[in-house]
């Protein structure tokens, strides 16, 4: 299973990651971070394909995507 780590303090909730996510598995937290933004969260990790589109588009480099090792599925 893929793992997406989003730095909740660095995220400014610009929503670009959600726009580019092919399976549409990113959502926005109901909680505010310390700057007052609703940061992105992975809502459905089962459908994440670890394509890294979110990490590539993030202007603040707030997203890290971990892929399962080949053959580990």
């Amino acid at each position, binding site marked *: 299973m893929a793992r997406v780590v989003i730095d909740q303090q660095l995220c*400014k909730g*610009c929503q670009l990651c959600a726009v580019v996510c092919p399976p549409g598995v990113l959502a926005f937290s109901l909680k505010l971070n310390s*700057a*007052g*933004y609703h940061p992105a969260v992975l809502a459905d990790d089962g459908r994440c394909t670890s394509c890294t589109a979110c990490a590539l588009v993030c*202007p*603040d480099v707030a997203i890290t995507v971990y892929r399962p090792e080949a053959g580990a599925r």
Partner: protein
Amino acid sequence: MMTPALMKGNEAIAESALRAGVRAYFGYPITPQSELPEYMARRLPEHGGVFLQAESEVAAINMVFGAAGAGVRALISTSGPGFSLMQEGLSYLVGSEVPCVVVDMMRGGPGLGNVAPAQGDYFQATKSAGHGDGRLLVLAPASVQEACDLTLLAFDLADRYRNPVAILGDGLLGQMMEQVVLPDPVTSLRDVTWATTGAGDGPARVITSINLEPEALEAHNRHLQEKYRRAQQEVRWESYRVDDAGVVVVAYGIAARIARTAVDRARARGIDAGLLRPVTLFPFPSRAVAEAAGRARAVLVAELSAGQMVEDVRLAVEGRAPVRFYGRCGGVVFTPPELLEQIERVAAEARSS
């Protein structure tokens, strides 16, 4: 060729200010501009400058008053609620003719509001520097590069007119990352012969805004107003497809970026739209707006507010063409399709009348 950097608007202003020779920063954190003091906290000490997080915006603006009065280039930054708190201090700076640069990255209001982008501080920035008859010179960047460039200009204008200069941005401009070519560090010397750096054998230098004699204070006011009349020569704007435009959109800052896309889309649909973007909000490019309106069938003002700059546009247009308004507020940002619809509406209305 300078290597471009990728920076947030807040960081670009901070770095540009450092290169302009800022040696004192005072402020109090507030989203969406906190990256600016964070940058200054890291970098200003490296340049031998003073960074101080004050206990409030009221304290911070008065610290700026002190540092700037001693002839140091001083910067302060905030968002709407903090800008309100600074109004008293700004009035003192204006009255005492002390230069500084104040950055307001506007957010949704009124009150505590939210941290999303808005343009609701236009009145507060352009109409009066706190109480009394003073004004701020106000610059409104629409890109990270322009935010960087106008920061240099702001410090020069502040010195030239010995008056606080405001950079009026918004949460979007402060937070978005764009390519920016940073300026070379400024090496020219400033004239601070008025500052309290020691008078030597000359007359005592006094920085104050109190003047208990009405006639003398009136004379001082006339001097300030003469200064603002002189500052009219600093007026700046950008015209985009305006020369043959039947529908002139007037927008500033980030709203103008969105309006520019909408204007292109309108042109693609055969509507003769154009965009006039004020870069200085005070002085306001009244003549440019009037001339564009004189050639147009209608004017559309688009703001992220309930309608503030539209009043200056109406004063400039003086009935030459109907002036319509479209705005979103509270932190909601209009989209290009949304503005395109408004341009089509105004164009249709102008055709049928």
